[in-house]
């Protein structure tokens, strides 16, 4: 080391210190705690703000927390990371996780947050490569999200992608390669258990001659491949700043034939034309290539298929349906080919001006273009001995068919903002933002189908099919526009007193002209106590802030034509033996539909102790959505085929407490560690429902969202035991449905009227957890790094619908049920003798949804710099990562993580088995 060298000492949580060596042999260094730790800059929508100056709730997740996880979307990587943000993943490749920020604030499908990717507003960020993300900021409360007005009610997730950093070009390559396997498969009865069961429940069924056991899950599942490669070049000088990357992701599904591949290319550039003018652009192109599987039938049938039928032998399938069972699930998967190719271009071009000091003007065009091409081919096969080992049954497809659908959608946003920031005197820090947004989205589509298309995939074009069967249509069409004006004032006095106010005025084309415009204001106040003199002379408390805010937000995420009565066209009938096309008006619509409004109070204490080694935040929030848009079930009397119409009927509240506590410390120079916990307690409640009319939802109306309960509350009969004998049945209140036999479930006469019927249903919990949590931590030691994330739900309920959804008596049962079910010799008082297709909804199918899961564990090693320099690298890190390593739960199904809409979450019907991913990764920088 040369004597005139300068050493840089750095450590997380401490400020860097540069020390000139000056020929000394030993140096004593003490690093100062980083006072900025709580002063990081966060993105708040149309601007940034010091985190310490915030009066609302904003959580930030850094890139490094995301990229280590072998997951397909960044949303999945957020699981367990921050309080108030619930991520419910589903195992499907390219599946969109359900995200709920501070509970479910609406009953419509539009409960997901708004994503803003470099200014582009979207509801889907599955096109993004995780490696391209710099930060994710979550705007949780109304005062933070109010700047997004009518899109802000469900919270806002702002994704900022990477930019080049000053310096010469950096080339980096990251990869992760591994495999996925199913975890927690449900054990089905084997042949012996199944035969015993059938002898009891369906003695008339003639059993096939088959001595083995077919495990249908083994037949349709596999170990799948995961790999992710990312190559990026970035850098910046005084004229230009650039970041280019390419990413290839393969994330195949567990079901055979279920595949997913995605290519992403990104170009982020900024050209600095002068000290006052710059042009910036962020653009990404993605191409997603998917082969889907019809999970609805494949997984349900795999659960129900008889173990006595051979799956496939010498190219011919076992005929499950000829045995009075479901269709052969393996055939179902193999005889359908459902592929989609989606190209998406997302990005913006902006002009930034700084005409005078402190004033920034920006005008940007943001675009999001999606082009999706789906092609579904159904092979022809008959229920004969060419396809099946034996002929018969009802599983057949008499004519091959090809369906092609192309959907393209365009959305643009033109944003104009002016931001003026000024320090008046040395104590008044003022920032003022005004702006306008113009937005238009449009979707076009073209769909066609023909029969008798040859089975060779090279022939899968519409032209090869029977022209007499040609059909074409435009299934998805829509156009919507919004106009908005926005403004914000931030004022900080002396670093102590904080004031923020947002105002947004929104107009939308989705409502009629009387209901179209809305004003969404917010105000927030904060007080940094540690800036006060009375807290200056103490060492314990390094930061203490109190803040409170109030705001109003809107949600207009409904179908654009909700308020206009339209006729369905092309309704066929035949006159004079010729087809004619009629029209039908059958949708009931509320002309005065308007957006739902959420008002929210938020109050928090933020603190840092012991030089901010311990930091934390406790927040109370109170959200009330009024006039929530809901599909109100209407009597069939109204002739509406879906038996519902949409209106502003409900008030929903979410009240809760979020707490997060983080410990971050260094021990010596080479060892640092951190540990954090966060917990969210949320109470969701439907406060008011259109004069008390409750909403039923879920398969078989298993949920009822009524006054005073959480949205999607299970509403079922209460199972209180099993009838042991006829005498017990005779003495019990009469069933109005099928007369019970010994071994049937006994239901409570909840309303005490002496009969058991659907009036005896009771509220029996909901999927919404009263508490969910995340635990994360990590350590670094001499190049070794380790990090982990746990997450879980506490005390929520799930409904095991797949167990109930039997169709035929020949359906298979779970091994546990086979062992525990009631028989005259096994007088169980919990499990009935059998579950039939008319077994009503009851608490028997409700199980605890509590779980804790090790979401992710990463162990990495960064090779010493001097070593990698010899091979011309600036850094090299290798790591092993595991996603979803284990789950502790009492739930008997595949997974207690069951995404769904507000009225039907937590119901396991045809859920994709969850997977565990194990992978090795490499990060190289040149």
């Amino acid at each position, binding site marked *: 080391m040369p004597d005139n060298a300068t050493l840089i000492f750095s450590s997380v949580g401490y400020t860097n210190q540069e020390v000139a060596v000056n020929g000394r042999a030993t140096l004593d260094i003490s690093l100062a705690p980083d006072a900025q730790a709580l002063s990081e800059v966060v993105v708040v929508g149309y601007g940034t703000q010091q985190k310490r100056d915030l009066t609302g709730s904003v959580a930030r997740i850094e890139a490094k927390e995301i990229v280590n996880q072998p997951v397909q979307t960044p949303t999945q990587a957020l699981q367990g990371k921050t309080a108030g943000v619930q991520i419910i993943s589903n195992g499907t490749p390219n599946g969109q996780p359900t995200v709920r920020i501070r509970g479910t604030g609406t009953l419509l499908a539009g409960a997901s947050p708004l994503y803003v990717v470099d200014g582009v507003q979207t509801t889907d960020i599955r096109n993004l490569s995780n490696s391209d993300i710099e930060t994710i900021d979550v705007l949780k409360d109304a005062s933070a999200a109010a700047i997004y007005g009518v899109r802000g009610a469900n919270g806002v997730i702002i994704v900022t992608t990477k930019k080049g950093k000053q310096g010469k070009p950096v080339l980096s390559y990251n990869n992760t390669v591994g495999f996925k396997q199913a975890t927690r498969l449900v054990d089905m009865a084997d042949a012996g258990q199944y035969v015993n069961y059938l002898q009891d429940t369906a003695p008339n069924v003639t059993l096939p001659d088959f001595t083995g056991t077919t495990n249908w899950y083994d037949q349709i599942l596999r170990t799948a491949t995961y790999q992710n490669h990312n190559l990026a070049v970035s850098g910046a000088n005084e004229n230009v700043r650039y970041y280019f990357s390419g990413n290839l992701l393969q994330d195949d599904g567990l079901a055979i034939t279920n595949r997913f591949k995605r290519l992403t290319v990104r170009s982020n550039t900024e050209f600095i034309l002068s000290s006052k003018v710059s042009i910036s652009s962020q653009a990404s192109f993605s191409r997603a290539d998917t082969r889907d599987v019809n999970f609805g039938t494949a997984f349900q049938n795999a659960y129900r298929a008889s173990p006595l039928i051979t799956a496939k032998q010498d190219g011919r399938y076992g005929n499950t349906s000829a045995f009075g069972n479901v269709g052969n699930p393996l055939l179902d998967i193999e005889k359908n080919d459902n592929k989609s190719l989606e190209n998406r271009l997302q990005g913006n071009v902006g002009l930034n001006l700084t005409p005078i000091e402190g004033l920034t003007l920006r005008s940007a065009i943001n675009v999001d273009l999606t082009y999706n091409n789906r092609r579904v081919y159904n092979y022809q096969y008959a229920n004969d001995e060419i396809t099946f080992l034996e002929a018969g049954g009802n599983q057949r497809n008499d004519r091959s068919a090809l369906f092609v659908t192309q959907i393209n959608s365009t959305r643009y946003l033109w944003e104009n903002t002016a931001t003026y920031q000024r320090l008046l005197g040395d104590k008044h820090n003022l920032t003022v933002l005004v702006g306008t947004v*113009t937005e238009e989205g449009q979707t076009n589509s073209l769909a066609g189908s023909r029969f008798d298309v040859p089975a060779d995939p090279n022939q899968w074009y519409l032209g090869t099919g029977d022209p007499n069967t040609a059909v074409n249509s435009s299934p998805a069409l829509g156009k919507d526009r919004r*106009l908005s004006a926005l403004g914000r004032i931030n004022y900080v006095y002396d670093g102590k007193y904080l004031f923020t106010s947002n105002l947004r005025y929104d*107009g939308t*084309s989705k409502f009629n002209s009387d209901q179209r415009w809305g004003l969404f204001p917010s105000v927030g106040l904060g007080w940094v106590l540690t800036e006060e003199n009375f807290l200056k002379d103490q060492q314990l408390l390094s930061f203490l802030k109190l803040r409170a805010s109030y705001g109003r937000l809107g949600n207009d995420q409904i179908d654009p034509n909700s308020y206009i009565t339209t*006729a369905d066209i092309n309704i066929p009938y035949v*006159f004079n033996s010729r087809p004619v096309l009629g029209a039908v008006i059958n949708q009931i619509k509320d002309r005065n539909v308007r957006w739902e409004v959420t008002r929210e109070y938020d109050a928090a204490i933020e603190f840092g102790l012991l030089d901010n080694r311990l930091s934390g935040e406790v927040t109370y929030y109170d959200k009330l959505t009024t006039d929530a848009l809901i599909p109100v*079930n*209407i009597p069939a009397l109204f*002739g509406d085929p879906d038996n519902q119409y949409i209106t502003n009927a409900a008030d929903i509240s979410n009240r809760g407490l979020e707490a997060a506590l983080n410990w971050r410390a260094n021990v010596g120079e080479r060892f640092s560690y951190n540990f954090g916990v966060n917990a969210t307690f949320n109470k969701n409640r439907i406060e008011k429902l259109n004069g008390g009319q409750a909403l039923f939802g879920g398969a078989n109306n298993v949920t009822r969202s009524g006054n005073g309960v959480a949205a999607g509350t299970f509403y079922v009969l209460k199972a209180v035991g099993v009838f042991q004998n006829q005498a017990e049945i005779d003495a019990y209140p009469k069933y109005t449905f099928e007369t019970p036999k010994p071994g049937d479930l006994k239901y409570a006469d909840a309303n005490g009227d002496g009969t058991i019927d659907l009036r005896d249903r009771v509220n029996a919990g909901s999927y919404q957890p009263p508490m969910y949590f995340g635990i994360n931590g990590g350590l670094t030691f001499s190049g070794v790094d380790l990090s982990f994330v746990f997450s879980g739900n506490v005390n929520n309920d799930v409904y095991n619908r797949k167990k109930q959804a039997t169709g035929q008596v020949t359906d298979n049962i779970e091994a546990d049920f086979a062992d525990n079910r009631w028989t005259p010799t096994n007088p169980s008082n919990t499990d009935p003798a059998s579950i039939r297709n008319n077994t009503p909804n009851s608490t028997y199918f409700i199980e605890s949804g509590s779980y804790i899961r090790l979401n992710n564990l990463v162990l990495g090693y960064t090779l010493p710099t001097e070593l990698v320099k010899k091979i011309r690298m600036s850094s090299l890190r290798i790591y092993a990562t595991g996603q979803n390593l284990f789950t502790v739960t009492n739930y008997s199904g595949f997974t207690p993580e069951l995404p769904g809409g507000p009225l039907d979450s937590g119901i396991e019907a045809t859920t994709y088995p969850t997977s565990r991913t194990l992978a090795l990764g490499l990060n190289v920088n040149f």
Partner: protein
Amino acid sequence: MKTIFSPLNRRFRLAALGLALTVGAAGCKDFLEVAPQGQLTEDQIKTDPAAAQKLVDGVYNVMYLGGFGSDIHGLQYVMLTDVASDDADKGSSPQDYGSALEVDNLTLNSTNDIVNNAWQGYFQGINRANQALDKLPLSPAPEATRNRLIGEVRFLRGYFYFNMVRLFGGVPKLDRVPLASEINDPSLQRRATAEEIYQLIIDDLQFGVDNLPLKGATETGRATKAAAQALLAKVYLYQKNYQKAYDLTSEIVQGNSGNYGLLPNYENIWREVGANSEESVFEVQTGINAACNNSAVNLYVVSQGPRSGGKGGWADLGFGFNNPSRQLADAYEPGDKRREGSIIFITTAKTGTVLWDGFRIPSQDSVENSRYSYKAYHSRTMERNCGNNDYLPKNIRIMRYGEVLLLNAEAAFQLGRTAEATTVLNRLRTRAGLPARTGLTLQQIWQERRVELALEHDRFFDLVRQESVQPGRIVPLYAAHGKTFTKGKNELFPIPQQQIDLSGGVLTQNPGY
């Protein structure tokens, strides 16, 4: 303006202009007026002369509803009319379709999905009719055309209500387009009396009688004057207004309402060759569309088709529901040609059963059930189809001349015109190859009705009606069929619990459920 911006440079002024333009655009109301894309709105219907006709055609389409969802003429309608009676059993494999078994055994309760699906289907039909009736007066078409179209729609609405009142008794009476704001209005949901519903049906059908053209003066498949007369006559028979029933049917029988007659071969009535024949008075028209998926009653044929069972080993024709009962098979007099024309008999003989088109069903040990409905059979080889078994184009005969004769005979008999009744009835017996009756009794007319209209979705209603004319028969008939009919309960099906729930309890349940 100028003074404010003058200190600033030119670029800023440009940007300010841009901003001002956008704010200006924000004030522009038209930007937010976005009409629905690619959809027909109510306003367009009002100005388009062809639209009224389209809405009427859209009402006919509702008669295709079937499958396992909302139903008008599909398998579930078959369950409620044939399987619920002593003419048929559920069929298929014993374990299949539990809710249909409940209907078969009359053990169903209010949560049975079949009754709910029928309720939904028929109210969809009624509402489509009301929507069309709401718009028709605005049509620029000539008054005569308008009245014909209104007549067609009211005929269909009357027919839908007639099935509803027979299935459920008094139902809510909806004769206009309800507003979204009325959804919680109890007065809309309250059940009208059966008499009020019958009055609506009679008014609708009478309008049809007065305004519909004769057969041949309108497109095949549209409601005609004779269709309205025949259906109204049947309604009057249910009302025991025999004079009106007699008068209306006599018009048809005397040839005043168009040319109608009996098809010489009974077995051809339900085949393609018999579609829209001289015997047809009103039938659901089906056909083939390019998509091969929506121009027929969903699952109607395939659900009643013979099903593989036992040893299997053949590509079967359907799900095997709606098996003609032993009682029905035994109800035919020896030599009655209608027996072989109505029922497919599965045999234990090695020859199997060869159908009219040459299709061979193997012998009993490979077939699930012993008897199937021949009337629901659609030949895959000799009758048109596009390969989609779910939508085989079988026209459903709602009213045919044979039934007009039966209505006429029964009304005549009740009016004391026994000789006339005998003559009319014997026309059917002659065709069936049976000797003419003398000394006619009401029982014999009903016996003739049973075998003539077997498996034509009338028997359950007819049994209930006959019981009100001559009490004491229905319980033994069901007992002979091995089932229990509870008087005071089973005359009607339960009001679907889901609908009671949705009405907030305003809808009341039928007795006994």
